[in-house]
């Protein structure tokens, strides 16, 4: 960076300091500048670091609270905290899970960054604070200024509901909202940047300090990797093997990706973000249907590229959102589509079983490339729970991916990322990946026992857990609940689990193969059957993990857990719920559901 370009926005210095520095160095030669740089470096080394941290007259602190399930909200919170810190604001970045509620009444400036899941549910780590703010114990917050940023997905009914809840509850307690809540859809990057700019500008006036310091709390985990969502690693696909048998209804892949020499690493519980390309055949069909040309140039991220390339690499074509239906309807003058948007329930049902291409196939119309791109959402990478442990596989990362393939409206449909990984990529091809850390899904210490509930591809992180526990020679016991359709064809990683069992790593396994008998049996049924032992394990300090389908399975399993704890812990329903909430607070009940 050249000094001439230095501004207070991109450095820890105030405007005044920047001006002084610029004046002092304006006429120096290269040799003189070099000498001065050495002088300043020496000064920096000999000075007392703690003096910098304890900046003079630290006025009010900005608390950035985040509630994150998959790590997105956490990543955003971290980014906002860093930007605020760069402005000389004293920032405390804290996960809602770690936040002491009694500190709330002393806060003066608060940013809430929270995601919403499933049917308007708060992420696990936000649950307790979310409930606390609605409870009678919540304090009056007349002196608090706050703003809320929500992350969500417009294809769900209760879009950004948790963010709305926080805003309402904080306002109800007397706190003052200083910036309108912003709700961000799955392609949230540009919205976040805009909101971040606005809020920091507002806060700058009251909170900015002349001397910036490394005041961000220890809550920010510094990642050593240079790779991120925006700057993914180009990794090599080593293998994509079907691991369901011939008779299986589902094609589930075990995928191995090389991270060799990248320095990219991960922990059990983390997810791998995968950027994917859309199916070129699908893209060509779409372009043809709307009367455009594949080669015509469009502007994406300030670059001129072909329309086909834009659709392959930059836009979401499988997951349908209401905005597309309405916008496409308007652009092609199809009032039936526009009207769908007037009834949310009708729209939800409409988009539930359709992809973008279905809307276009069933409602032919022409529009300009600009209109098309405006209607579509930007492509977002898919996150897959990592199925391996570095301690076992070294510089590789493994995934367990269910290939989404189904027929609808007499046409074959595919999931975008899963078909990319299983069909369009060949072994040896490169793909763009990054690690999404998930501190809400972590193994306990080696001496503690774990209960893992992971039907279907929910097995993935538990393969990682078992590999890790194996390599750690962990003394804690490991108990797995797994389920799928058929024993003979859908027992994912069967031989590996047999090996873990043989070697004493997997101490217990309970299996539920739903279609192997007349009545369907699921993991929650096994949990009820094994309720007594399970409760005893929990009493003895075991941690509980659920991974897999969040719509139905996680709820049914939760209900089964409540019932087991009621029955075997001799508790009321309320007490059993409370027991699980306490486990969550203690980070002993963690979920990775999707």
């Amino acid at each position: 960076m050249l000094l001439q370009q230095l501004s207070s926005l991109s450095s820890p210095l105030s405007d005044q300091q920047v001006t002084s520095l610029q004046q002092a160095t304006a006429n120096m030669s290269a040799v003189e500048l070099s000498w001065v740089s050495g002088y300043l470096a020496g000064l920096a080394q000999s000075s007392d670091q703690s003096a910098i941290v304890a900046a003079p007259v630290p006025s009010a602190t900005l608390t950035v609270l985040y509630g994150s399930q998959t790590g997105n909200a956490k990543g955003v919170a971290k980014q906002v905290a860093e930007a605020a810190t760069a402005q000389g604001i004293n920032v405390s970045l804290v996960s809602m899970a770690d936040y002491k509620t009694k500190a709330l009444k002393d806060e003066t400036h608060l940013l809430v960054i929270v995601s919403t899941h499933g049917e308007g549910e708060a992420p696990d780590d936000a649950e307790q604070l979310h409930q606390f703010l609605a409870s009678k114990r919540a304090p009056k917050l007349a002196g608090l200024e706050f703003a809320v940023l929500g992350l969500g997905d417009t294809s769900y009914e209760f879009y950004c509901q948790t963010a709305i809840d926080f805003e309402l509850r904080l306002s109800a307690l007397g706190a003052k909202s200083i910036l309108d809540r912003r709700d961000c859809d799955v392609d949230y990057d540009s919205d976040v940047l805009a909101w971040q700019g606005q809020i920091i500008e507002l806060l700058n006036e009251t909170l900015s300090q002349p001397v910036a310091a490394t005041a961000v709390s220890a809550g920010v985990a510094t990642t050593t990797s240079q790779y991120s969502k925006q700057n993914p690693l180009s990794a090599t696909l080593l293998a994509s093997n079907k691991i369901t048998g011939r008779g299986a209804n589902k094609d589930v892949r075990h995928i191995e990706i090389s991270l060799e020499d990248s320095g990219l690493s991960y922990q059990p519980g983390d997810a791998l973000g995968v950027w994917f390309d859309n199916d070129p055949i699908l893209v060509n069909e779409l372009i043809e249907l709307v009367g455009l040309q594949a080669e015509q140039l469009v502007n994406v991220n300030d670059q001129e590229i072909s329309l086909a390339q834009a659709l392959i690499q930059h836009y979401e074509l499988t997951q349908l959102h209401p905005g597309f239906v309405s916008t496409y309807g308007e652009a092609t003058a199809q009032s039936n589509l526009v009207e769908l948007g007037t009834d949310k329930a009708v729209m939800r049902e409409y988009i539930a079983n359709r992809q973008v291409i279905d809307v276009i196939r069933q409602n032919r119309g022409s529009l300009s490339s600009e209109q098309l791109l405006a209607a579509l959402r930007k492509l977002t990478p898919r996150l897959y729970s990592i199925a391996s442990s570095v301690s076992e596989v070294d510089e590789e990362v493994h995934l367990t991916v269910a290939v989404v393939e189904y027929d609808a409206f007499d046409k074959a449909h595919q999931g975008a990322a899963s078909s990319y990984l299983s069909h369009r990529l060949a072994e040896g091809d490169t793909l763009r990946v990054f690690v999404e850390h998930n501190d809400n899904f972590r193994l306990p210490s080696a001496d503690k026992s774990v209960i893992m509930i992971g039907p279907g591809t929910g097995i993935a992180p538990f393969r990682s857990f078992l590999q890790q526990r194996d390599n750690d020679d962990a003394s804690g016991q490991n108990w797995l609940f797994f389920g799928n359709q058929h024993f003979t064809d859908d027992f994912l990683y069967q031989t590996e689990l047999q090996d873990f069992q043989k070697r004493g790593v997997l101490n217990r396994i309970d299996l539920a193969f739903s279609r192997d008998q007349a009545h369907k049996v699921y993991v929650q049924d096994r949990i009820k059957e094994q309720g007594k032992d399970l409760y005893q394990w929990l009493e003895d300090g075991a941690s509980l993990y659920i991974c897999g389908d969040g719509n139905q399975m996680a709820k049914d399993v939760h209900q089964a857990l409540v019932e087991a704890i009621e029955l075997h812990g001799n508790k009321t329903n309320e007490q059993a719920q409370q027991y699980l909430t306490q486990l969550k607070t203690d980070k002993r009940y963690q979920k990775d559901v999707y």
Partner: protein
Amino acid sequence: MTDVKLAANEYIKADSNLLRGTIEEGLQNHITGALYDDDTQLSKFHGFYQQDDRDLRGERKAQKLEPLHSFMLRARVPGGVCTSQQWLDIDKIASSLTMNQSIRLTTRQTFQYHGILKRNLKPLIQALDLSSLDSIAACGDVNRNVMCNPNPVESSLHQETYEWSKQLSEQLLPRTNAYAEIWLDGEKVRGHEEEPMYGKTYLPRKFKIAVAVPPHNDVDVYTNCLGFIAISENGKLIGFNVTVGGGMGATHGDKSTYPRLADDLGFIKLADTIAVAREVITTQRDWGNRVDRKLARIKYTVQKHGIEKFRDEVAKRSGVTIEPPRTIKFTTRGDRFGWVKGTDNKWHLTLYIECGRIKDVPGKEVQTCFREIAKVHQGDFRMTSNQNMIVANVAEADKAAIEGIARKYGVLGERLTPLREHSIACVSLPTCALGMAEAERYFPEFTDKVDSLLTKHGISDQPIVMRMTGCPNGCARPYAAEIGLVGKGPGRYNLYLGAAFDGTRLSKMVRENINEAEIMDELDGRFERFALNRQTQENFGDFLVRTQEVKAVLSSARDFHD
């Protein structure tokens, strides 16, 4: 004795608490479709083998799935007789509790199911029990299913011998309560339990009994460990010629092993039947080889001690006077296809079943056929030792209806060549763990090719006994066939020739490890010479021996391998 290391199975049996082992625990281990290793030896005594689909082994390994384990269960059906209701039950079990959904008739007059998943074993055995069927001792080192000539033309004589075969089967069953406890939720035995005849280590090896009614040798009586040949006077059964020491199994490349035809023990009176059978078994129990399982069958025991010494021992143990054998004459080992009328005026329809496989294929809905027949049939069914089925005891009035069903589903009406009528094959790939080459899946096509050669030489009406097995254990009794094929490797077989048509002389290996083209080449020249030079009524095996194309096997211990 204590210093000698016995065969591994001897310790498994000894430690099994009379065949219980840890089978029950294994059924509860849901992470695998297999039983514990040692229990897979014990399960045979309960009637089933653990197998896996060998076609899928490699593929499933890559899928991180264990081999597709399943079980083959063989029922105990003395003489191969079952009722219509039983057949309907057998058929329903196949459809509901097995992966293959088909039924396989065996060379020992029973049926077996393939592709039973572990979780379905208990329901399946319970369903058989409800139908008064069981699989006790259908496999294992015990007396197995007792065969008996099933074609009841000489009705009263047959009925008597059949009753004896049933009695033999019942009397020689193991007495352990293990089967009832494990499969039928029977009450557990407390305290000491005895296995009076077998003892806790049972026999050194499997044991097979057949009862023949001359002149029909369809049960291939001389290939059995113990044989009973019915002797009658004026149409009334008076006793049996007893034979001991037959058996088929051999090991490729091991000349200490060989197939063997039984020796004559002698004639016994009817009343002495069970006593003699018991003491043949106890003699084998005590004299048989328990160190080397390959040499453990009674044929080696008889060969080692000589038939005289063996006869003396049985006579001594049983207190029975064993007389010299009566003269008997066998004429054929084939089944009598089509309708035959018995002396009691009941009709019997023998239907050809390719390789004994009861399943529906387009144009030939064998499984549906027997289901429909069973729904209306007032008599019974009889499985033959040639893997065919007899619809037996049909009243004159019902004949047309039964025949109509058989024709409708394509099971009757096709012209069969005499070669096909006299041919059998074992199961082999993909389910049998021992199979080295195809048998059942390849045999029909192979038979067509041999038939074409016979046609080429104008001898297509010549009955020839031809049998194929995927391994040298010889379930389809290939060494006793005029053309015997024993699997050596994929697409490769050892060729055996020269056996007697009536089953009284074994074949000899003429070429080792040859492919189809080479087999056809070997047969082509011999068929040509047979067509030109055969004598009246001369059979193919006899011709080859007479013209010295093949050296006769007279005493297999000495001359089978030379």
